[in-house]
């Protein structure tokens, strides 16, 4: 990583154990900056807001003046703080304008279903989901995650936020409803359409391509 800029590496905390306060910021930014920034960027989709959130997180750590046993404890603590900053941001924006989005994908891919007759609302066979060749190694592939990220970036902001909260962070429906002031019914509709859109996008951009390559 060549992003040190003008920072002097000799000022890192390891060499100044007696005074953790002053040298810690550099060490934190060096060790955790990228991870926290990406974490925030995925959820906020705005580099400036993400940078603010990361800075606020470090400020909180500075004020807390905590010390940790090892890097990973430090990292999880920082991620926990950052997560709360991001949720604060969601909460605030849900107060300004409603978080509910029932417009996105509202036709629910109706063009893929039989419009009338005996098999009305059944898949048009040629347009139905393909077989995905997923196995344990799929999740280790950088291309899969790139496609996943690109596809989830195509979701509208609020739909993506809801999807990330539910699927990436594993927050329960009821908590999300409380956080964002939306009804459970509307949350379910948004999640259903988000999953549907993401699935379709991934099939085209990842699994479809994989098939062509074979």
């Amino acid at each position: 990583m060549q992003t040190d800029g003008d920072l002097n590496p000799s000022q890192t905390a390891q060499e100044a154990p007696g005074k953790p306060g002053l040298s810690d910021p550099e060490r934190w930014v060096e060790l955790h900056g990228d991870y926290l920034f990406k974490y925030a960027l995925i959820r906020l989709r705005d580099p400036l807001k993400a940078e603010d959130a990361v800075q606020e997180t470090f400020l909180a750590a500075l004020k807390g003046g905590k010390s940790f046993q090892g890097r990973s404890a430090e990292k999880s603590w920082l991620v926990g703080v950052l997560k709360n900053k991001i949720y604060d941001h969601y909460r605030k924006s849900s107060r300004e304008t409603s978080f509910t989005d029932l417009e996105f994908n509202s036709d629910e891919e109706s063009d893929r279903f039989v419009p009338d007759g005996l098999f009305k609302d059944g898949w048009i066979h040629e347009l139905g989901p393909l077989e995905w060749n997923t196995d344990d190694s799929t999740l280790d592939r950088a291309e899969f995650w790139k496609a996943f990220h690109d596809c989830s970036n195509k979701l509208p902001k609020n739909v993506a936020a809801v999807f990330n909260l539910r699927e990436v962070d594993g927050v329960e429906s009821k908590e999300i409803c409380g956080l964002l002031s939306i009804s459970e019914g509307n949350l379910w509709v948004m999640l259903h359409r988000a999953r549907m859109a993401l699935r379709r996008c991934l099939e085209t951009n990842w699994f479809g391509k994989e098939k062509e390559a074979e």
Partner: protein
Amino acid sequence: MKIIAAIKERWVVWVWQHTPHCTEILRLASQSLEQPQSVRTRMKMRMHFLICVWCKRYDKQLKFLHQAAAHLDHQDIILPGHGLSAEARQRIVQNLKTADSKNL
């Protein structure tokens, strides 16, 4: 052979008429990730999957995405080149140091 084909066709139509249609099955597939579905609903979904490979795949893929998404943050490879810029790093360090010196 004709008889078997005819029986099969009647079976497919019978199941189709006694289970929710595909669009509804997709909604249920998503909803089952939110709350447990009744035995009756689960039975109907299973029945439907017997005659509809597309809904079966969809359900399986939704479950796969549900599990995959939870791994997103373990992927250090995600967003390559999207880390903090050198300028952003400096800004943050500078602001933190300023805040720190005020505290002293």
